[in-house]
């Protein structure tokens, strides 16, 4: 890579946050990670599960990173510090899982869960990625660039430059990026769609996402 790699700040130190951190560390990204409370509480798990990542508070993870990844339960999105996230590129890896999240009334008026998040963070640049592959397949499925059996990861966002930045990260972390459209189009990655949970290659994904006809 020619340009220096962005520093990642992951909000959420559960299964998904840890899997993303592990992928990023494998390719030498700098990673700050925060759980729902103090850095102390997650220090031991981070030290052992994602050696190299730095356990911090959410505030620090945002301040010290270039790009923030949301890996918390979607129902907690209202706790996100809107002001601190101003101007940031924010990757939304969350999904609406009704069993855990309960009913979120705002979701009814938004066309996709990522649009709802963007609406809550009006001055941030939200891009949806890392959401449709299950956390227990992220690690197994990741492959370096140039390998034949690479899997595809869908990306949705409203700003072309931001989407390209995220595509680079997705590729670095082990997946062929497939740009499926804007945040509203992110709907086709949500639970209940054929793409949700799908661990497939680029050709199949383009077909399933209806991109070949566009």
């Amino acid at each position: 890579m020619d340009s220096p790699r962005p520093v990642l700040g992951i909000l959420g130190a559960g299964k998904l946050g840890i899997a993303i951190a592990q992928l990023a560390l494998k390719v030498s990204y700098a990673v700050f990670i925060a759980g729902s409370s103090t850095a102390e509480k997650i220090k031991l798990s981070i030290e052992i599960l994602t050696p190299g990542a730095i356990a911090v508070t959410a505030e620090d993870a945002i301040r010290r990173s270039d790009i923030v990844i949301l890996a918390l339960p979607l129902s907690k999105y209202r706790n996100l510090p809107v002001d601190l996230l101003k101007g940031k590129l924010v990757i939304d890896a969350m999904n609406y899982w009704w069993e855990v999240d309960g009913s979120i009334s705002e979701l009814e008026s938004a066309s996709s869960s990522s649009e709802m998040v963007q609406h809550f963070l009006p001055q941030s640049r939200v891009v949806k990625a890392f959401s449709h592959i299950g956390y227990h397949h992220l690690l197994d499925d990741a492959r370096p660039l140039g390998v034949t059996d690479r899997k595809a990861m869908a990306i949705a966002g409203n700003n072309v430059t931001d989407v390209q930045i995220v595509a680079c990260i997705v590729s670095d972390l082990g997946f062929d990026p497939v740009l499926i459209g804007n945040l509203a189009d992110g709907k086709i990655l949500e639970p209940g769609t054929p793409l949700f949970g799908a661990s497939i290659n680029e050709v199949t994904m383009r077909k399933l996402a209806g991109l070949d006809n566009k």
Partner: protein
Amino acid sequence: MPKSSYKQQRNILFGLDSFGDIPVDKDGNLFSHAAAIRQVVDEAVLADKLGIDVIALGEHHRSDFSISSPETVLAGIATKTKRIKLASGVTVLSSDDPVRVFERFATVDALSNGRAQIILGRGSFTESFPLFGYNLQDYEILFEEKVALFAKILTEKPVTWEGTTRATLHEADIFPKTESGYIHTSIGVGGSPQSVIRAAKYGFPLMLAVIGGSPARFIPYVELYHKAASEFGTKVDEIGIHSPGFIADTDEEAVSIAWPAHKINFDRIGKTRGWSPMQKEHFDQEVKNGSLYIGSPETVAQKMANTIKALNVNRFDLVYGGGPMPASARLHMVELYGKKVISRVRELLNG
């Protein structure tokens, strides 16, 4: 750890786990829930005769599984068996009452002459929450508080406790007391690091539920458990893994029976969770490199031995009979597990 030390230091335990999936008869008709429960009792009796160490039964509260009350089934098994340990896998403590859980398992312990075991978990299914009037938003606090209370109850001394998730207890003595003075209790974990640390904090044995993906990715979780236990000064004496599988005489036969049943099972659960339907390619991948232990006795034994070595665990519970499988194939599987697989895994570990 060098290979030879398995022989000296480790007595690996082998278990069979079920949620009471509904089997089919030879014409493909689904059993009733009641018959499915009796099938599990028959399988446990056979497992006991074959010297399998543990039968662990998990709870579900939905139509595709027959067991919602594992300890009642375990009580039925208790009086028909001699040696096999009788475990839950898991008891969803968050939506249960710790006092009641103890009472029920202490009763199973009495009926079985001290063979009851408990695996506590948060459960990856959530249907028990609305059913028993709990709010999913309290998922964390319910488990946290109830595990703390349960650890006290397990000492079998009068308990004084105060929290937000159940009534206060003041010097409450809980009966029946067990003869050994302690019910073996583990914590089942699906990959949440905080749960691993919690198990270490209370010195509970750890049971890792690895139901998809490469088992090797749990190696750091085992390390986390050891490290946390040493920080808390607790003792680590048992780490187990729980993974699904199926055994038949040949690899082809095993796959031909397990694949359709597994797909029906997965797709049905997926419907409520938004997963896309399971593809054969994904299934094959899980059989080859992931967490499905499906094949002939030799194939399954090799795979189990590799996992046991890689994770350095001393208990392996095979979740059997997932989906609508022929009842006769399930019984045959138990037989192959008890007669061929376990001894072969021991041989591979000690060889």
